[in-house]
């Protein structure tokens, strides 16, 4: 078992087989630096719980393929990324810090899928971004590539 500590001082025990999906922790264990608790100053407990849930589910990836549980895993992944933007960004940051390639891929792809085909207005609203471009700057971007701003697939809804 490996002990992880979130930045709000909560400790979590994770099986070594699960936790070594994180390249960072795997390297630490290999270098013998994981004898006691591993502090994770960038990750809060709420996010860490999500990450551990993912690691535990994916621990038996190889076995899943053999026993036909692949669909199960796919379903889990779909459910897993069903979270708010803020939470998703937190998990991406954690995945990036811990260097968990598959989780990074899953979450970034989910973010990209949500932004795909959205109108500029919808993207700003979804991510609560204030437009700080001047009207001229905006017009210039549009004039450079008018094709990108028209089309039946562009979706102005926010969800």
């Amino acid at each position, binding site marked *: 078992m490996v002990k992880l500590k979130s930045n709000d001082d909560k400790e979590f025990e994770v099986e070594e087989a699960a936790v070594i999906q994180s390249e960072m922790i795997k390297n630490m264990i290999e270098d013998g630096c994981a004898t006691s608790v591993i502090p994770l100053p960038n990750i809060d407990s709420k996010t860490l719980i999500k990450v551990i849930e993912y690691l535990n589910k994916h621990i038996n990836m190889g076995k899943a393929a053999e026993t036909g549980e692949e669909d199960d895993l796919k379903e889990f992944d779909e459910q897993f990324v069903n979270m708010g933007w803020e939470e998703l960004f937190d998990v991406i940051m954690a995945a*990036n810090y811990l260097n968990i390639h598959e989780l*990074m891929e899953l979450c*970034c*792809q989910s973010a990209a899928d949500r932004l795909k085909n959205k109108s*500029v207005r919808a993207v700003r609203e979804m991510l609560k971004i204030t437009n700080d*471009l001047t009207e001229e700057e905006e017009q210039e*971007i549009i004039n450079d590539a008018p*094709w*990108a701003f028209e089309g039946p*697939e562009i979706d102005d809804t926010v969800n």
Partner: protein
Amino acid sequence: MLIEIFLRLPGKSLVRCKCVSKKWNYLITSPEFTSLRVPHFNPAIGLLLHCSSFLINPFHEFVSFSPENPIQSPFHKLTFVDDPFGIRILQSCNGLLLCCSFRVHGQHNQNYYVYNPTTQQFTTLPRPEGQRNTSRAVIGMKLAFDPWKSQNYKVVCIRLSDEVFPDYQHYQIEIYSSDTKKWRVLGPPFLARYDIGFTHTGVYWNGAIYWIYGDNPLRFNVEQEKLEKFPMPCIGRSWDDDQEMKSDGTEWYLKYQVNVEDVINTFAHMIRHYLEPTDWNYFAMVVLCVVRGEKEEDTFMILHIPKMIIRYNLRDYTFYKLCESGNTSIEETRFDDEDEDYEPPITLAFDKFSAFQYIETLFCL
């Protein structure tokens, strides 16, 4: 983190995201991001199928390769320029399309265009002038564009010269380069058999254009501007084989073996019962294209059988129907006093010359 997400967005959405805020615009236009974004491998995501009849200008059916994540058809009719004769696609090359006027009386009115369907930009090529005495009609045009090698593209034009020999003909090569925007006559005319197939065949691959037709295949190395012969594959025993050339272009090897029996068992309507089973055309099926995947095991073929387009995975021999297609363009002849036993011939709407891969590229024309 945003960069990781931007990298996974399709081109059109990405360009639109520049308008979200200063920071986003800065990130997306930065050279660091652009160099990350040029994918080391850019797979085709769909197929454009040319349809036409005697009455209407050509249009295209679009087949998305991924039914789970379908892509919008980039266009139905080519209308980027108002060509009174309509426009047709001649070739698809790493995301750019070489197009020309569709129905033209006389070579001289024919326009050639290079079109990027992703950005909807186009260039009208100037007409090759040729040398007054040697070259005449345009026999073939080929586009050579490889974004991993160069940010310029070239167009190779084959013209027919006036001198006529039995079985052989004189051809002249001219080259257009997008950086000079000019045509240039290359070397003296050369002799080749009249059935070399310059008009309809010709594939750009790995820096050269390959014409495989008849017994004397030729390739034109676009960088070295050299025309040379190359060996032909010994075409195997049946159409179950698919051969590939080694990347140095010297040798062929058997790459995939395909078993079409399962396809035939599943889609029995492709059997032409009115033919002898030994007939080469007993099964109504054509390979429209082979699409390279990023990994070997992702490579697949697109097959066309009557009324359907099938995706056939070359690694595990699985296949499934991508869409129903080819219903509309078949002009079925009907007779009112038709004999009840009359079986209409089983026809295919497309062949490999009417299929063009759609690859997304943000290359600016």
